[in-house]
Every structure is written in C-alpha cells, then in structure tokens.
C-alpha cells in the first residue's frame, strides 16, 4: 500500500523533500512505519521527531492504512 509522507521545516531541510510517496506493508503499525521511513534519512536521527497520521498526532500502535497522510517534523516552535 502507499502513503504520503510530509516534511516541514528542519525535516524538509534534512531530507531535501517536502512530500514523498512511500510503499509500506499492509497492517503496519505507526511506530514501525515511521521507523522505516526515518531509516531512509539518517540526518533525521539527530532530531527529536514528532509523527502525525492524517493531521493528528500518531499513537505508536495505530495501524497505518492505504492512502494515509503521514507527517514527520521536529518539536514545534510557533508562537
């Protein structure tokens, strides 16, 4: 199955990407899915990362579904 993965700010800079499409195994859990994606971009590992699925903060054990919108970003700094 395929999901979209979005990067913002520091993670967009470290990956050189703002949006990618990734193929994942069916019924994969969020923590495994994000570990797999982050594994492709070693420069992300120096950051504390936050993860979202479909515009909500992800819980590690939720199941990723085909067509989901994932996002990987650093601790927020708005305000």
């Amino acid at each position, binding site marked *: 199955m395929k999901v979209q993965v979005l990067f913002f700010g520091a993670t967009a800079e470290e990956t050189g990407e703002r949006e990618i499409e990734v193929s994942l195994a069916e019924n994969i859990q969020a923590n495994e899915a994000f570990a797999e994606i982050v594994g492709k971009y070693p420069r992300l590992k120096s950051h504390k990362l936050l993860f979202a699925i479909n515009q909500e903060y992800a819980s590690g054990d939720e199941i990723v579904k085909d067509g989901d919108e994932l996002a990987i970003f*650093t*601790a927020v700094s708005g305000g």
Partner: protein
Amino acid sequence: MDFCEITTETLDVGAIARRVVPANCGAIVTLDGFVRQITKGRETLYLEYEGYEPMALKEMEKLVAQVKTEFEIENVGIVHRLGKLEIGETSVVISVAAPHRRHAFAACEWLIKELKRTVPIWKKEVYADGEVWVEGENAKN
C-alpha cells in the same frame, strides 16, 4: 465568536481582540507575540514561519474547545501568521474575553503555552551569518 486562523497577512492586534467581544464581558486579555530583535544575545535579521496548516488549524481548534471547558470564558480568538516576518511584526495573537478578567488572564496564558507545545508551526531564525530552524523545548507527549 471563536476563531482560529492562519494567514500570511499583517496582524492587527487591536482588531483581532475586538472580534471576541460578547455583550456580557468587559475585558479582553490579549497576548501579542512578535519577532524579537535579540534572542539569547544574538541579533535576528528576520524570521520565517512555516506551518502544517490543516493540522495546525485542527490543533488550534482543539485548544479552543479545551480552554472553554476548563476556564470560565466566553470567546477566544487565535490568529497565527506564517511566512517572512520582520523584527517587531506580530506572529501570533491570542485574545480571550471573559466576564471575569481573572479567567481571561489564566486562559490566555494557558493557550499560548499549549500552542507552543502542540500546534505544528515552526520558525526559522535568520541571522547575519546563518539560519536555524528552532526546535521547541516542549515536545508533544
């Protein structure tokens, strides 16, 4: 009326504050966050704000829903600006109207603290000799 907005336009703090006024309230507390010239002794040239807009709006709306259950307030307005901001320009306005000002102060303070912790917006500080994406201290969860 409550509202959460993200814009790249200049923010008019006074006008935003006035949009949260109900008839039974006599005070608005407003937090005006703006671009500091000096951060930790270093001079900033300008800031660049980026947001995950649909998620940022959802998180802002969650904060509004939560603040209204936890504090005795009438109306809340939150507006965050994105894009390039010069020194002194307002990046965020949070206005709270309440019948009793004590609750307005407490709610406004809670909102800016939570916004900085949960709303997916990031700022890049640009200096004369470099730039850095700021990573928040208070990570979600």
